[in-house]
Every structure is written in C-alpha cells, then in structure tokens.
C-alpha cells in the first residue's frame, strides 16, 4: 500500500472513477494574458459541477497562460485541474521539470497530447519540438510514478510526482480501423483514463466503442466520451468542414440552423442557437451513458464555462459524488 491509500494519485477524478461513478470532466481555457482573476472566475463557475477540469496547454497553438500556472490557481480555488501537456513545445527535460513543479503545486492529474500543429496558431514561425510523442509522454509520466525514475532511468530521490495519467483518442481520425488499437497502445503505455475528441456522430462512435470493448481495452483504461455544446450554426459548420479529424453530421448542423430561424432579434436568435446547442449536448450525454465501456463524459464548452452547470443539471449528473 502506498501513502495514497491504494490510489495511484489520490486525485478526485481517480477516486470517482475507481468508485464506479459516471465521471464528469469539464474544460477551463486559460486567458491570453496574465490575469489570475480569469481563472478564479471560471473555477468558481465549474466548481461542484465537474469532478475535475482540463486546463488546456496553448490550445490550437495559441499562446495562453501556462496550463500548470493556471492549474495551480485552480487548485487554490478548490477546483481539481487536469493539466494538459503537449509534446509540441517542450523536450523531455522541460516536460519532466514542469511535471515536478506541477506536482509540488498540488496538481494530481495530467493529460498527455501531441498538440495541434503550430501552423494553426499565432506563432506559425515557431520550431516544433516533438522530442517524444504522446504515447511516450504517457510512459514517461507513468514512469515518474510507478518506476520512481526519470525517463533516462535515473532514480528520483525524494518525493516523486504521482499523477493520474490521461491520454486522448480521436475515434473519428483516420485510419478508423487502427484507432481502437491505438487506444489499446495508450492503455498499454499505462494511461489511467482517456478523453475522446468531440463526438457528434454517435453511430460511428458506437462502432468504435464496440471494437474497443471487443479488445477489452475499456477494462484497462477509463474512457470518457468527449461532448460539447455548439454555440452557433457557424461553429457547427466550421467543425464539419474545416477541422481535420472532426465528424459533425449534417443533421446536427441542420438542427443548429433551424434553431434560430424566423427570429428577428439578434440576441434572441443567438440565445435560441445556444439553447439548441445545450439540448444537443444533453442528448449526446444521455446516449453516451448507454454505450458499453464509457465511464464518463468530458464536456468541452470552449470559452463557455457557464454552460456546464446547465448541462450537468439537465443531464442528471448532479450532485457530483464525494468520495472519501
């Protein structure tokens, strides 16, 4: 038994998942400035409505407050963070030293990603690092915890960082047939939980999960289905047409378009679209709960944290469990 009472990290997310509850994670996007107050405000909105909140790491390759800095502020504000870490901006030295710092600041969950390519962001001229990939990052963070050693094999003397380790998977990325196996690789690398890309095409996700369950991967790693409320029909169309690896069926776009139809007042029109977006999201969550192998949902309300209390309430996900 470790000092964590048998838990790997002792994080709230780990406890909720281990207890078999249907988990809820949300997302908190750090600001494009150094204002701590933004984090506190967003944390106050999410607190009590999610078991933990992802703090994005220079999302879409745009410079924002660091996920660890913002994560530490979330800890102070009483919201458990899932600190995201991409392989784009740092080599293995910087990553490990940041992980030591993050743990010292109270962070207990880390999500490992490749990271959007910098051509999409506000510094397309930047060098990309990719010293290691997301699979190897999972192995590295697990090694810090379970092998008590750095990636090079050197022993960590003193306190070692013991994170609950997350990874991501895009069920809609190609090649589709390889995706369940890739998820299996992440489980093999030691990931404790996985959050998926936004799901709008439920039949396709169901097929993906059927294959994942056939492989038994859902028993090795907790799978949180990615969902999110659409704000406008434009956003739905953009995701359908412009974002590589996203699958937004026309039916969803049509629903978003129909929502605002016939409403003259601009504010009311926008509100109607947002309401429909929330409705679609709640329906998605209800469907996710029925899919074998799904252990929770990751709700991505991008720059719309206010939607989380509404969605979790309507989806019957409240109150969030308290696990000792």
């Amino acid at each position, binding site marked *: 038994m470790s000092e964590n009472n048998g838990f790997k990290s002792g994080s709230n997310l780990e406890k909720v998942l281990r207890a078999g509850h249907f988990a809820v994670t949300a997302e908190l996007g750090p600001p494009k400035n150094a204002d701590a107050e933004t984090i506190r405000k967003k944390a106050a909105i999410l607190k009590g409505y999610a078991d933990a909140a992802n703090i994005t790491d220079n999302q879409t390759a745009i410079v924002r407050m660091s996920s660890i800095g913002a994560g530490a502020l979330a800890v102070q504000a009483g919201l458990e963070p899932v600190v995201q870490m991409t392989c784009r901006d740092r080599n293995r030295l910087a990553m490990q030293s940041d992980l030591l710092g993050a743990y010292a600041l109270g962070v207990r969950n880390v999500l490992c990603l*490749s990271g959007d390519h910098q051509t999409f962001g506000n510094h397309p001229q930047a060098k990309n690092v*990719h010293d290691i*990939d997301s699979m190897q990052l999972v192995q590295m963070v697990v090694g810090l915890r379970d092998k008590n050693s750095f990636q090079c094999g050197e022993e960590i003397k003193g306190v070692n960082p013991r994170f609950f380790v997350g990874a991501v998977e895009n069920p809609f990325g*190609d090649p589709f047939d390889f995706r369940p196996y890739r998820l299996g690789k992440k489980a093999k690398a030691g990931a404790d939980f996985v959050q998926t890309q936004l799901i709008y095409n439920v039949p396709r996700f169901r097929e993906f999960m059927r294959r994942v369950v056939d492989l038994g991967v859902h028993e090795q790693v907790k799978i949180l289905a990615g969902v999110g409320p659409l704000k406008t029909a434009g956003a739905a169309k953009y995701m359908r047409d412009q974002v590589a690896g996203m699958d937004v069926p026309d039916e969803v776009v049509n629903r978003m378009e129909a929502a605002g139809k016939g409403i003259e007042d601009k504010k009311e029109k926008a509100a109607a679209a947002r309401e429909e977006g929330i409705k679609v999201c709640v329906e998605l969550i209800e469907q996710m709960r029925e899919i074998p192998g799904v252990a929770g949902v990751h709700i991505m309300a991008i720059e719309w944290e206010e939607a989380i209390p509404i969605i979790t309430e309507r989806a019957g996900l409240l109150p969030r469990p308290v696990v000792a």
Partner: protein
Amino acid sequence: MIVAEQKPIAEIQTLIGDAKRVLVVGCGTCVTVCFAGGEKEAGILGSLLRMSSQMDGNAKDVSEVTVQRQCEWEYLDVIKDKVADANVVLSLGCGIGVQALAERYPNALVVPGLNTTFMGMLQEQGVWVERCAACGNCMLGLTGGICPIARCSKQLLNGPCGGSSKGKCEINSETDCAWQLIYDKLKAQNRLHLLMEINPPKDWRTSRDGGPRKIVREDLRLPAAEKA
C-alpha cells in the same frame, strides 16, 4: 539528392551589392538535377544579372562557370583564377557547396544564390518531395519504408495523431499523412503487428541535436605521412 530552389532575384542582387566583377558558380550534381543551380541555371542567372545591371546604368562584369561538384576540393581547385578575379562569388551550390567554396577561398566573398530545402526526390515532373531528415538512425525497416521523421509533421513514432483525415495531414490537404501511408503499407504486407509495439523515445543524438556530425572511417584514412 539535395533539393534546392533559387533565391528571389532581388535578394541575390542585394547580396551582390555593388560588386563589379561577379562569378556565378554552378554545380553539376544535385542542384543540376533539380533545375536550381546547374550550368543552365547559372547561364540564365548570369545573363539576367548582366542585363539588369546594364539597365540600371551600372554594368557588371558577370561570368559563369560550373563545376562537377562544389562539395569536393579537387573540383574547386580548377576555378582558382576565376575566383581570384571576382569581387563576389555567387554560388549556386547547396549550402555545402557555398561553404566549401568559402572555406577553400578564404579571401573571396562567397554568397548563396539558392535556398537549400531538403533531401528528397522528384515525384513527378516539376514536383520534388522530402524523404529523409538525416536523423542518423534509420527506422524505415519498421515503418514499411515510409519515414515518420521526415514525413509526419509531428515526427510521431507511434501512429497517427487525431488530425489524420482521409489520408491527409492536419496541416493541409496537400500533405499526405505519413502514418496513413505506413498503416496501409504494413496492412498490405500483413505486418500490422509492428504498429502494436510502442516505439520508445528516440535517441536524437545521432541527429542534429547531438551537435554537428562527423564520420571518421579509420579503415579509409590515409597514413599521416601520406596526408602531409
């Protein structure tokens, strides 16, 4: 081969400045094959510089010469007098050729006329593609002969990222997803098991990250006496 392309003419003119006598040095190897810096391109660029300098009312004396390989001393030695005679040497070699010229002729002002772009090949007429990043530790045996270091935008070693869509890379629809190609190839060869293994972090010391590289082959070196 090494693939290069010519710099914009305005940049070349800036690099030459008001030098009166200009020697354009073409290279007969890689950059000839990719139509960037061979005898033909040296001739065309030389003419262009001559004509434009005449039109500017400050006629330059531009001459051209093309050597077999700019990256070997023996081929550079034969142009000694021409180099000595020039105020500026405009190299149409790759970055290696430019540096070899500059090193062989320390008193000469050597400037580059090309941008060296990558190691690659002709895919179809007029289209060159990158194929190797010279990482110094080839893994093509595990990836169906398709290099994820040179051809995946994120140099991933364990399969495609979430941005792989319909065979293309997330960065643009012109770029093939290297991992889709690898997957298809290994599937056709019945070797998909290779993708189920987790490739460990790469040792980048053999790549540029280990500092400038050098190969010393003792079996090929000349005895000290012969070198002198």
